């Protein structure tokens, strides 16, 4: 099982659940890497959903594609990356009608971004289901240069855009789909503690 138990934190830190089937006219399931396991788990419990389901999967090195396809969803798309899949996700959402259920499973970064796309299309985030699986690396926004650094697993880390040393906050923005990074040595320039792994 690739799920991770996130430690309890501040109220702006997202909390993920377990995907459950919900009544709806159609279902959109987006997952990356080990998130596929959550989709497979849901499908085993409720195979009848598949006739009205659109699965979008970003393997990121994993091999769940065949199993997902074997579920026989109404539509199946496999994208090489989230960026490549983005225009399709946006189109699916803008064409969607109310009565759509949205299920996201996988990394925080992918789920946050997909959730934001649904919000931009007019869908309230409270109804979007999320289940975390796989990597616990974070998308971090540098509050100084606004650049996003992907896959951050250490604290502090270097902003991949402006090079400042940033500490990792649990404060999270749904709109930006990232956690906040703030300069760690602002008050004592050069005094950067050694990095430790997140959640260690």
């Amino acid at each position: 099982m690739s799920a991770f138990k996130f430690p309890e934190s501040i109220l702006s830190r997202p909390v993920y659940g377990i995907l459950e089937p919900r009544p709806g006219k159609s279902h959109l399931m987006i997952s990356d890497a080990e998130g596929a396991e959550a989709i497979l788990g849901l499908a085993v419990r409720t195979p009848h959903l598949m006739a009205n389901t659109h699965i979008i999967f970003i393997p990121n090195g994993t091999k769940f594609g065949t199993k997902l396809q074997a579920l026989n969803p109404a539509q199946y798309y496999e994208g090489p990356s989230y960026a490549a899949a983005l225009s399709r996700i946006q189109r699916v959402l803008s064409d969607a009608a109310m009565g759509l259920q949205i299920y996201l499973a996988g990394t925080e970064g992918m789920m946050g971004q997909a959730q934001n796309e649904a919000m931009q299309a007019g869908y309230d985030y409270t109804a979007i289901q999320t289940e975390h699986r796989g990597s616990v690396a974070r998308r971090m926004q540098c509050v100084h240069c606004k650049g996003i650094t992907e896959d951050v697993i250490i604290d502090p880390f270097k902003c991949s855009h402006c090079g400042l040393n940033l500490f990792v906050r649990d404060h999270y923005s749904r709109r930006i789909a990232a956690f906040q990074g703030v300069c760690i040595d602002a008050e004592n320039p050069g005094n950067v503690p050694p990095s430790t792994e997140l959640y260690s």
Partner: protein
Amino acid sequence: MTIQFNDETFRDDYSFSNSQRAKDRFPFPFHEDSYMYSINMEQHQGGPADSIYEKRFDVDEHYLAEMRDRALVLADDPLRCQSLPHMTLAGWDLLELIMVSKSEDYPELFELHRNGSKWHWINKPMGIEDHFVFMDETTLPYGPMEYITRQTQGDFCVLDQREDNLWMDAGMVTTQADWSLDFDIGMNFFEWHAPVPLAHEKGIFKRALKFLLSIQQGAPARRLNWTMTVNPLLDTSPENYHKWGVQKNTLTPENLGSKQHLRVELQTFFRLPRSNGLVFPIRCYLMSFQDIMAKPKWGRRLHRVVRDLPEELATYKGFIDNRPMMLDFLAQYDDGLPTSFGVWADEHSEPSLQK
């Protein structure tokens, strides 16, 4: 009433200073010799003559200098002013609220002439005069919220009220105590307050939210909040923290009196009629420690508050490292005498420093 507007800076050479009038009306926030969070809300329906509470939107000697500083912040970083698309109606509500309030409360400084939706606004101190059509953004040089808040002291959080919660969906935030509008826009009341230590466990925010949701048109509320700033720097944003953070290390026992400032926020809450939103102006007042010490009661009290403040709060308010040096300075002004209850300096009745 005529106000002499200061020509001063809140950055670089920090030429900011408070006149005696400004010092006398400074909103010292501590009513007793210790501090803990409370909801401390009350009606915002006037106050003592010439106090900061008297008018709906207080205009003081720092007005023009603050607006110049705001313009500089925005030129450098336009993301300090944002409005999600559905908040334009609330922006018009805010524009009307400020224009009506200021033209009524300061008729010698501001004029508003309305002919149906054709409005004519004159801001004499800033030399602005505009004709526009109310609710038609194409007739203003900026969106309504940005237009009017570029002419009004203090930050403005414009909140959408939905699902029994408040959502920070628009704002003009250039004088903040270390939080980012660009990051927090779109968050609800509990989320944007998430980093505040201790308060959530005490249920403070649940009770505060219930109160705020009930605020009606024509019945605004207010409260005070406070923090510390080294130098009279208004733009203590996280965006620029890597530039200003190091100033905290420039304090010495000799310069602390003039450099260390108590920063008090007058927070007000007004219901917006057409959008049913809420506007949350955050108006900043700065006073140096040495000016505060000139009022003996405040001198005694500030020492005790800073000394006994829980570590989490001193850390969250950003002065934990400088606290020892601050206490060395403040202790000189605390003779141990009792202080009267209440925030006012009570200079006629409180004894002078016995040291």
